[in-house]
């Protein structure tokens, strides 16, 4: 049982808690089946039913593949959850590069650009399963929360602890890497395991985006003059494009570079390491990057 399943097992003791899924068990495989409300692959109803429960203050943890959870059920998210203020936690599996060899029909690489239009949604791409659970433990269901599920364990952080905040997981080099989710976890691992990269880069974990919260986070990021954003999201609506807009709008002198999934569906691969390499994320390539 992983940390998230342990968390849910505790939560389900509360009779107001519901674990819902659209036949997707990736994040909840070890939860007893009798504790799961499975709607089959009816993703629209998954959201509608969750809203009906949430309307009566039930607390729903809603699971599906990210693409079907967000894109297929879009109108239900907008009207039933967002407009009606019915607050749930949505946990999407296989978001971003995690969809590896499923092809474009199963890719969810646009959650931020979709959900930013909603008034009650917060977006969370945790760096590790521990970060996810820690955040969910403090979540009060005053908003909707979309979580891009990440089963990875935490990366050990070797740095001067005084400098560590929730976001700055490493402050050493003068170039700041901004990342999140499973990709951020990988990048942080690469940096931590290489002395030269540790000298070159600092690391900012941009995992949680609150409504209207972007500018405040951007202020922290802009303290670094050189910024490299690495994310598995379409360029439109990405952290990179938003930072870029702020730089242009405010005529800032920060140098910004982005590694993301561009403007098309990303190229699939069976092997996650090949995807990292294709994106230019290896110790060698990171060492060569100039800003």
């Amino acid at each position, binding site marked *: 049982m992983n940390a998230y399943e342990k968390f849910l097992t505790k939560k389900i003791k509360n009779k107001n808690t519901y674990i819902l899924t659209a036949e997707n068990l990736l994040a909840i495989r070890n939860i007893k089946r009798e504790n799961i409300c499975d709607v089959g692959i009816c993703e629209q*109803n998954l959201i509608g039913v969750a809203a009906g429960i949430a309307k009566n203050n039930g607390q729903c943890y809603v699971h599906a593949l990210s693409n079907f959870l967000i894109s297929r059920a879009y109108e239900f998210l907008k009207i039933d959850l967002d407009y009606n203020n019915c607050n749930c936690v949505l946990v999407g599996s296989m978001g971003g590069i995690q969809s590896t060899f499923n092809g474009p029909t199963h890719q969810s690489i646009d959650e931020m650009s979709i959900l930013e239009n909603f008034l009650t949604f917060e977006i969370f791409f945790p760096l590790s399963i521990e970060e996810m659970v820690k955040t969910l433990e403090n979540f009060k269901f005053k908003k909707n929360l979309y979580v891009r599920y990440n089963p990875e364990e935490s990366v050990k952080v070797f740095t001067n602890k005084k400098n560590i905040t929730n976001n700055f997981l490493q402050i050493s080099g003068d170039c700041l890497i901004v990342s999140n989710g499973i990709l951020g976890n990988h990048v942080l691992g690469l940096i931590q395991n290489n002395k030269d990269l540790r000298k070159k880069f600092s690391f900012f974990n941009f995992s949680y985006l609150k409504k209207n919260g972007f500018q405040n986070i951007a202020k922290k990021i802009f303290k670094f003059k050189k910024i490299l954003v690495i994310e598995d999201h379409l360029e439109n609506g990405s952290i990179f494009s938003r930072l870029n807009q702020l730089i242009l709008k405010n005529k800032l002198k920060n140098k910004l570079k982005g590694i993301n999934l561009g403007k098309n569906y990303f190229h699939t691969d069976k092997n996650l390491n090949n995807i990292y390499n294709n994106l230019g994320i290896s110790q060698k390539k990171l060492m060569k990057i100039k800003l």
Partner: protein
Amino acid sequence: MKNINPRTLNYLLKKKKSVKLKLYNYTKRNSSFLGSCLSCLDVLVYLYYFKYDLTSNKKLRSRFILSKGHAAPNIYSILYDKKIISKREFYSKAAYWHPNKNIKCIDFQTGALGHGLPIGVGMAKFYNDKGAKSKIIVMLGDGELNEGSIWESMLLAVKWKLKNLIIIIDKNKFQANDKTEKILKINNIAKLFKEIGFQVLECNGHNYNDINRKFMKISNIKPVLIIANTIRNFGIKEIQNTKAYWFFDKSNKNISLLN
């Protein structure tokens, strides 16, 4: 089964008249989807004034979700008649053509078709798990059966044995611009839903005694589907049961029919 006693029947007819008058006044001022409102008005009067508590402040009271949201002026007229909303609110911008959640006793914001039943299934599941005795009532249009999400919900209602869920189909045989059977025909709805696992009842949706007889037959052992056979624009002979006048524009020369 017993009929409604004459005194209550008189009361319902009186209420119908009062609500209808308000609906006409609303339409003269704001326009409305009058055809859809008049087909389900009798059933709504029965539900709101006789059968269920749909307007109290009780936490787990019965809930009504108007999935065919464009008949919302009916609900506003009932809430105004019951003095739950004021005249000012009734004629305000807040009382638009679809149910507005910000108006008291509107149990859920609907409008886009195919949403109300999934919500109702979620509510019924919650109420069932809590052992609440009250009902979750969802009204669909027969044209709304075009929506795939409705069929998903039907399957879930049976799977979860939602005996507290009452689905009413306002079968006025029209959708927006034409006859339902011409747009997308569904053969034998009753048989179809019996086979899915519903208790299916059918009534004349303009006859209070018949509506009541069928509600009295609800078994409370599985979800129930009530097909209310109704007539679009019921009560206005000149335009009832025609494909025109789904939407009644206040500038239409025939608005005097509502006088």
